């Protein structure tokens, strides 16, 4: 299959000027001048088309993602373990009814993937490490042990290398640091090749091209220029460049001037982003530094329900899903369900503490 960098115009962008992700030697397809909705009047009375805001509501974003994932089920999640995970988008996608997903992530994930499995939305997991760090992921374990979900044996370099190949538009990424592990016998994404220079046997991974990537960042302008203010930004930039469709939640939509005054602070240019939504506490129960810390108590309580489900008491886990995933109609409802202003004041204070 030829590797292409060309981004398939998604529904959200199908009426806009799409001039992105074309390799330098490809013809650029100019789609402008068609069905552009809004116009503004200039000083001399002429009209000109306006740039389309990418600001999208959580439910609309989830439907966009669900429809795209029905074409190809590869979903990728930004952040890492309990930091910067796009959990509100995940919940909205689950509420919208996604199924049979193939889930990718930066090389480490926990709560959100476990929740997706608990909700019955996952068929295959392509994430090297799946853990809550202080304990195992209960629903991931149960589903894999019962043969309901396939968890592939992978390593960080395979996932990062695959995303690199996709982002860079090359047919594969060589890897020369995989030795001795049984993971090599089972990893479905790599091949052995002869290095054309040294002749040594090395590995290659083909492009990993998520159909949809969800990211969480602290800020964005209305065009989708994302600003991560956290210390680490994991593989978020790489995923944005590797994916067909990128949907981000942010803590705050900022005025255009904030971005224009400090362009070096933009971590993911709007060029790569299809939709962005301001979702207060959209990473909860994971952290969105420096704005709020991870909610370890919430994750632990959830894991207890997962452990109970392993021993046959599934009712309380189902109740959790009803209360947090399918029940809340808005993010405000969710915030109330998990503890409201008091909880988030504490998590905000925790994040500020040095």
């Amino acid at each position, binding site marked *: 299959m030829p590797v292409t960098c060309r981004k398939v115009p998604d529904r959200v962008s199908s009426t806009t000027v799409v001039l992105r992700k074309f390799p330098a030697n490809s013809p650029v397809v100019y789609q402008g001048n068609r069905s552009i909705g809004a116009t503004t009047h200039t000083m001399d009375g002429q009209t000109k088309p306006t740039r389309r805001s990418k600001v999208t509501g959580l439910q609309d974003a989830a439907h966009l993602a669900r429809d795209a994932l029905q074409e190809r089920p590869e979903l990728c999640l930004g952040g890492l373990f309990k930091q910067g995970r796009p959990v509100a988008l995940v919940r909205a996608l689950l509420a919208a009814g996604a199924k049979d997903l193939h889930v990718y992530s930066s090389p480490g994930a926990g709560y959100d993937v476990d929740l997706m499995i608990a909700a019955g939305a996952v068929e295959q997991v392509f994430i*090297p490490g799946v853990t809550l760090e202080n304990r195992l992921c209960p629903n991931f374990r149960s589903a894999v*042990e019962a043969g309901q979900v396939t*968890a592939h044996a992978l*390593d960080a370099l395979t996932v990062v290398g695959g995303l690199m190949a996709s982002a860079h538009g090359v047919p594969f990424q060589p890897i020369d640091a995989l030795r001795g592990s049984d993971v090599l016998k*089972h990893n479905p994404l790599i091949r052995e090749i002869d290095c054309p220079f040294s002749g040594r046997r090395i590995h290659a991974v083909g492009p990993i091209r998520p159909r949809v990537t969800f990211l969480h960042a602290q800020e964005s302008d209305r065009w989708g220029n994302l600003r991560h203010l956290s210390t*680490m930004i994991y593989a978020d930039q790489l995923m944005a460049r590797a994916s067909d469709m990128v949907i981000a939640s942010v803590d705050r939509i900022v005025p255009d001037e904030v971005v224009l005054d400090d362009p070096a602070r933009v971590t993911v240019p709007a060029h790569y982003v299809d939709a962005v939504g301001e979702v207060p506490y959209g990473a909860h129960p994971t952290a969105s530094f420096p704005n709020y810390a991870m909610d370890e108590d919430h994750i632990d309580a959830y894991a207890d329900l997962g452990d109970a489900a392993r021993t046959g008491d599934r009712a309380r886990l189902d109740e959790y899903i009803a209360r947090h995933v399918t029940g809340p109609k808005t993010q405000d409802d969710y915030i109330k369900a998990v503890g409201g202003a008091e909880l988030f004041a504490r998590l905000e204070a925790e994040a500020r503490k040095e």
Partner: protein
Amino acid sequence: MSAAISPLEQMVVVLARDLADGELGAAGAAALVPMAAIALARELHAPNLTVGGEMFFNPEPGRLYPSMLDDRALGRCEAAETFIELFGHSHHGLDFFFHSGLQHDAFGNINLHHVGGTLHAPGIRGPGAANLSYCHTSTRFYICPTVHTARNFVEKVDFITIPGHLSGPEAKRAAALTNEGPRFVVTPRAVLDFDPATLRMRLKSVHAGTTAEEVQRHTGFELGFSGDVPTTPPPTDDELSILRERVDKTGTLRA
């Protein structure tokens, strides 16, 4: 020092002593003991040791956290990187790294994938692991599980997630594992190293308050010691006061 030395404090001190000034290394996934060891080494004898390779450089946490993948634990931090740079570090290797798992075997191989069954029909499915390369691209690594029982120290792991010495020198050569691999193993009970000829694990020293027989009873394979096994040198007053006053102010290692 008034309070008794905890097993985790003993582990931290053993590890810190082996980290040298000017080295580059990272803590790995279960970060509490390794990060404490790194921080203690930097305070004691290795001010130019660089913490790097896991997407952050030289974090200055105010206290110890169980995971370093937490902006609170990074505290003030000199610089951040991304997984693209981690891809490079993984090929170039570090000076040292740390690992622990669900099972550890007599040759220092570590299993984080499954216990019992097969990968796709596991008895117990473990978490897997993100980075499988630092164990052999780095000069050396340390094995430091915070539990030591006959169930997690087994003759042969069910799945090799992190290769140690495989089945010995020949297998290691065949797999092109050219670096040192696991240098030693520190647990709450003992320090274990590897016979240079066979690369099989053996008992090096037991921590104060336990015996070689006791360690053997909690190990699922023959440790092969004879005669008196030395006691692990306990923390000096200096080591312990700096550990408690500057590294582990909240007493996490004693909890």
